[in-house]
């Protein structure tokens, strides 16, 4: 947008050229400052909960609740660190908002946390993660014979933890905490 404003000014008579950089500079500075302010706000959990939509209890249980989200809060990890919002996804969401298609925002899909996001901080890869829980022995849930599972199959971000293993078999007495 800044560039579009700059273009017509550049074709104006030379007399005004001296002032133009100042005006543009001020405009850019204001936008940058506002942008930084917006960016900082945008990084806060309160932004997600107030600007576009109700987040139901996702923000409240980030502060305290049954999911692992509140553990991430304690580690200073904010919403968008995990719910990685690429520009195209955010624009698609804005479009749904503008189109009035608010029943179909699909936040759960658009901001779904894939294993790769968890593994960025927890181990780096599924294999490495498995090594970090090797002491669980034959019942290491991260090296199970079923294959790689979605992390959030058991580790729910905003809901009760799921003890998936023991739904079918003994798991060496492990229980989901958090």
């Amino acid at each position: 947008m800044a560039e579009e404003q700059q273009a017509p000014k550049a074709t104006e008579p030379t007399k005004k050229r001296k002032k133009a950089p100042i005006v543009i500079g001020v405009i850019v500075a204001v936008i940058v400052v506002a942008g930084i302010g917006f960016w900082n706000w945008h990084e806060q959990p309160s932004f997600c909960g107030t600007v576009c939509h109700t987040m139901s209890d996702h923000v409240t249980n980030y502060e305290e609740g049954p999911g692992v989200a509140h553990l991430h809060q304690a580690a200073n990890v904010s919403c968008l660190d995990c719910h990685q919002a690429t520009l195209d996804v955010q624009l698609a969401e804005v479009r749904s908002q503008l189109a009035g298609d608010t029943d179909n925002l699909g936040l759960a899909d658009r901001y779904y946390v894939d294993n790769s996001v968890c593994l960025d901080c927890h181990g780096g890869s599924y294999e490495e993660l498995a090594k970090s829980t090797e002491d669980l022995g034959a019942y290491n849930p991260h090296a199970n014979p079923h294959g790689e599972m979605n992390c959030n199959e058991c580790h729910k971000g905003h809901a009760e933890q799921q003890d998936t293993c023991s739904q079918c078999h003994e798991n060496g007495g492990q229980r989901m905490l958090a």
Partner: protein
Amino acid sequence: MSEDQSRLEPTRRGFLKAAGVAALSAAAATGAFGLTGCGKAEAKEEALVANNAGVGKFSESVYTDVFPFETRGIPVLKKETGVLRRGNVAYVANDIPESEIKRTEETDVLVCGVGLTGSCAALSASDDGTTRVLALEKMDVGRGMFEGMGVVGGTKMTEAGNIVDPAEMMDRMRAAADYRLPIDPIKLWADRSGEAADWMQEKFDEGDGQIETYYKTGNPTAHHFDVPQTEISFRSPQWSEKTTKNAGGGGMMIVKDFANTLNKRSNVDLRFNTPVCKLERNADGRVTGAIAKDADGYFRVNAAKGVILAMGGFESNPAMLEAWCRTEDIEHCSSWAPNSGGTGDGELMGIEIGAQMDPLPAAIMNFDFGYPEGFYPASSGLRPLLGGPMINQDGVRYAAEDLPFQARSNATNAQWHRGEKCWRLGSSTQVNALAPEAQQLLKDNLPAYVEKGYAVEADTLAELADKMGCDASTLEATVARFNGFIDSGHDDDFYRQNLAKATKIEGDHFYALRNQSCILATVSGLVVDYYCHVLDYDNKPIEGLYAAGGNSGGFFAGEYPRHVFGPSVGRCVTFGYVSGQHAAKGE
């Protein structure tokens, strides 16, 4: 628009809806949003399969748009499913631009999905030693959760003297679907499942798992659901007691053994972490192959003889469950089967190129013994309380407890709020009958369930009723009546047949456990003929396309008939075997 279209516009309908604001978004993309840096500018390396790229809840119109004809909506209550298990979707709804297709591979038969069905299809297609088979699985290993296989005839049944009339079984299966079925799929199972079981034993003999099929009599189904015995079981000296005892544990080992055998065959190329995303059909109507994806990006597979869809159902795709199933089937239920691969990829890919899908709503495999977070774990020690009378939100008994799983689930979902608050009752009578360690396990684990509201306990029925939120005198009358049926030997209300196994709700302590439906799988799919060719909506085979197992259809309607022994796995193995045979011959 064009470059971003695949990510921004996941569906055609979504595209039309969004057109009005597209200009604004485009401006935002180059302007303000970019300046403020909202969003991560550097895109992460894209996952091979993902929840937010292909099909997702935000683009749920794909589940109606995908059909090649005008659809209508029946006004049903719109509710979210209780299923939390989400697999990663492989199907890509958008056109994949040629520029993104990095390479082309040639094969004879392409097998999409390598669980039990895909393993069987790939083995069968490669049995001749010369047919080139490319088998692609989106997950890191093929999944498999099963214990037995429903068959009619075959060596093991014959040796055991368990002779079942194929015509009778065909009729039992058709009756279980209220005859809402074409002829071929059931007939194929009734005619050739015995042969398929024998073939499966040959594959076990070829493998390293020392797996053996054998006949084991199942618990006869009570009530008026009695059927002939049709289940073949599996065993191996290599399996631990835990594998054998665990629900579905043997299935996992079978899929593993088949993968091992496939890897030993020189004419088979088996790859994991490689989703098949889209079918390709030429102007003559023949399916020529598919677009798949691996770490290097999209690639085209040309399959000279045929493509076999073996990608299962859509039990791990909550948005699709909401779109295609009865609300009461999917609302107050949880998921039970850690396979995660069933996200409807095969159904959607087939329908997109003209394949005939079973009529919706789709049939599901449902058990009860569920609570809002899952299936009551054996490790909770609570299962001894799950055999008690089935009580609804008003404290009234609502069904015979000896009904098969699907009937109990359906009856539960027919109660208030589609089964939101149904219970099983227990008492000190049942608990005291347990071994001391079992009693201790129950006592140790119950408090966690009580805390979450999934269980209540009390010293009197009146107090229990209060905690359940129902009328005390109603619950007391219900229990007295139920206990009376045990004395008289006749269930005046629901005609329970095995009252001799029931114990009274009496003693000095009482329990109520929330009891709801669990979804194990969806069992509707693409309608096939006697040779596993996928049919179009004119019942004409789509040349070059086969479907098998949970990806195929024309086999179940309404619900999975849990009272019949093993038809789901029977279909997986039989149709995998038959589709592989025919695809290898290109006929």
